[in-house]
Every structure is written in structure tokens, then in C-alpha cells.
């Protein structure tokens, strides 16, 4: 089971200017680039951290290109990959 709070924590840790945001306001509909000022470099660091933590590879998702910037979609992607990996 992938905990939303664990995911939110990773996102929070990758925000460059945390003083501008509040962790509890990171919601499923939050857009990393538009709402949290992530750039492509910060995104890569975030995805590296996620892949390392949960042992997944985002390119295994066919629609990866459509889900890499919205928190809820990324979280759902992690769950799908974990289920796949667990044979689910």
C-alpha cells in the first residue's frame, strides 16, 4: 500500500523554496510545475527519489507522458506500477 503522506513528503522534500508553500496544501490536483514551481531538473530529482523509494520504473507506464506533472496522477502511477510489480 502506497501511503499518500509518504508521497507528499517526497514531493515536499523536493520543493526548492519551501517557504512559499505549505505541505498540507499539496493535493492530488496540485500541478508540480504550475503550483509548486518545479522545473524539469527538480522533476527529475523527484522522480529519481520516487523510483528509488518504491523500486519502480515510470517508463513502464504507457501513459507516462500524460501523468508526470500532476500529483494525483503520479501517485496513481506509483500504485499501478507497484501492483504490477507485485503481480496484481
Amino acid at each position, binding site marked *: 500500500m502506497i501511503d499518500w503522506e509518504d508521497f507528499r513528503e517526497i514531493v515536499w522534500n523536493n520543493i526548492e523554496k519551501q517557504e512559499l508553500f505549505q505541505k498540507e496544501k499539496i493535493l492530488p490536483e496540485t500541478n508540480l510545475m504550475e503550483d509548486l514551481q*518545479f*522545473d524539469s531538473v527538480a522533476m527529475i530529482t523527484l522522480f529519481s527519489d520516487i523510483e528509488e523509494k518504491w523500486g519502480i520504473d*515510470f517508463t513502464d507506464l504507457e501513459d507516462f507522458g500524460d501523468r508526470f506533472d500532476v500529483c494525483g496522477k503520479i501517485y496513481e502511477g506509483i500504485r499501478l506500477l507497484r501492483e504490477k510489480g507485485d503481480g496484481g
Partner: protein
Amino acid sequence: MDKLKSMVEYAYQKVPLYFQLAEQAGLDINNLEYEKLPIVSKDFFIEKGSSVISSEYMGAYIQGKLLYGRTSGSTGKCSEVYWDRIQEQKSLFKLWYYRKKYYGITPRDKLCYFYPADEGSDQVFMDERKLAISKDLVVQEKISLILKYLSDFEPDWMILQPSFAAILCKYSSEIPKKVIEKIKYIEMTGEYLSNSLKEKVRGIFSCDIANQYGSKEVNSIAYECPQGNMHVMSDNVYIEILGGKEQGDICVTSLQNKVMPFIRYNMEDKGSLCVNHLCGCGNPCAILELIAGRSDDFIKGKDGTRIHAYAVLSIFHHVNAITDGGILQYQIIQKEQTLFQIYLVLDEIEMREEIEYLLKIRLKERFSDMRFDFHIYSHLFPNKNTGKIACFICEC
């Protein structure tokens, strides 16, 4: 295809340039058929000025809030390109993702790259993670200074144009061992990359080498996987080969840039596309193969005829293949209608006689009434204005 349709509809509804094109072509902008959309040339785009900017972003454009860049002008045509910050970052994301996935490169790694001379007055920028060196230093042949910066910085990876990679190969004995040993990846971009040069660089640096094809207009178009295939960045662009033949002009539609949408934009490069493949890397995106020579490079015949420069370039490719990569770099300049100057950089100088002989025979067969003068160089320097080397130049 949804993204493509959405971008096309957006462009034809929001961008003055595309309204005009729709009107001229008699297109119904509420019912667009992609194959009937006009192909847009670089010249046409440049001459249209601000009518290429979306009405949605005109306010930001006027207020100077957009990201701005200039193309290198390597086609002889320099244009301004504008991006929205977020769209630009989205267009860069996948390239970074694949750098990490394929080659283990992350933004935390130390990068050295060379920037066009007109982008800043300072020749070198350095911080903890990046060393940016002006291409002016290359053109001015200040190689020892460049090597000193590399030695002080010790990059993990570099972004190079093939012409500069060839120069580094030439001076490889002067590059400090610690620099060579530290570099784990070199990304080549901006010019045609021959296999022979790629293998030469790999041999010296013993690192991963990848070719990246892109432009300021759309950012990354195709990127080489570890299997040696250049996969199209399908989140960034929709790509076509014009003419319905196996090889032809590369035409792209940007899927990210809504500020200046590029719809069926002719890159003036030549290539071929393979869509049905099983690449060992697992990436299902189409594979692009680039061909040396711009689509508008033409040899001028005596009687006013024009022959595409590829007729000459293909001879060099063939000789390079049969000499097992004997030619590292070349440049052909048509000085007069019957006179060509050929500049060669060879892998081994001992091969000069053989390579010149092979080239002369084939060139004479094809162009019996033309003269070819050969010059052997240790390296070729890029053009000081574009920072790049063109394979073929017509000066007559």
C-alpha cells in the same frame, strides 16, 4: 494523436499566422484535416514577425514575460523563439528523464557545455554544477585555456558539438587524465554526427556517447538510446518525413509550445523514420535516422541545374564506410561552378592517399566536369557566427 489534434486546433484558432494560412488554403478551421495543412518553412516563419505569437500570449510577449532565445542560424536563417516557462520545462523533462534512465545522468552531475557567442559577453560561467564556455573560445583556438577550465572543473558529463568533440580528440594527449577518467557521458548535438567520430570520441573518453537532435523551436526531437537508435521524443513533437519517400525533409509539429506553435514546420534537415521496430531498449517511439546535409544544400551546375548536395555527401559516407571510419570530419565548399575545395580530417594521416584516391574516383565518375582540390587538416573549426560546421557550403 489527441495532443496533436489539440495543438493544431489551438494554433489555427489563436495564432494570426495560421488564420492567414487557413484563409489562403481555403481550410475550415473548425474541421481541419492534418494532411491538408500547409508545410511552413523557416523563411516564411521568420518573415511573419509577431504574427507567429498566439493571441493568448501576446500580452506576456509585449510585457517581456516570455522566455526568449535565438536559433543558431546554422541553416543561414536565424530566428527568435519564445516559450512559456512551464511549457519549456515540460519540453525538457523527458530528455532529462531519459538521460537518467539510459546513462545515469542527473541534474546533480557536473556539466560542461558550450554556448553560442552572442548569448553573453562573459566567456566562461562557472558554478558548483555547471561550466559554460563561450564557443568564441573554440573559434579563437584558445584550446589550452579551455582545457584548463576543464581541468579545474572536472565535469561528469559534457554537451558538445561534433566539431568540438573532434578538436578535443586532436588535443586528447593534453587533456589531464583526471578529466578523461571523470567524464561518464558525452552528449552530441547541433551538427551531423558520423559513426567514425563517435567511435573515436568513445575510444578516447571510454564513456557513453549519445546523439541528441533538437532545436530551439521545439527543444528535443530525438535522442539516442544505448542500443544506438534515436527515438523520437513523442511527448514533444509529432514528426513526419515529407515527400512520401523513405528519406526526405524532416517536418515537426510541436506538442508543447503554445506561445509560438510550430505546425508542420520544415526543419530543413533530411532523415528517415522507422515506426515498426523492436528496439532492445524497450522504447516504442519511432526511430529517426538523420542524413548529413541540409535539405536546401544544392550544388550549382554549369548549365544552371541544381543537384542536391547529398549526391556528393553520399560519396563521402560510402568511402568512410569502406575505410572503416577513416574520415572523422569533412567539409565541402563549392567555390565556383566547377571547383570544389574539400577539407578532410582523417583518423590516420597514413590513409590520406587511399582516401583521396577513393573519393577522387567516385567524384569524377559522378561529376566529370568538376574539379576537386583536397586539403588535409588536423581539425576543422566551427563557423564563428553559428558555432557549427556545415558539411556543404555553396559560395558561388
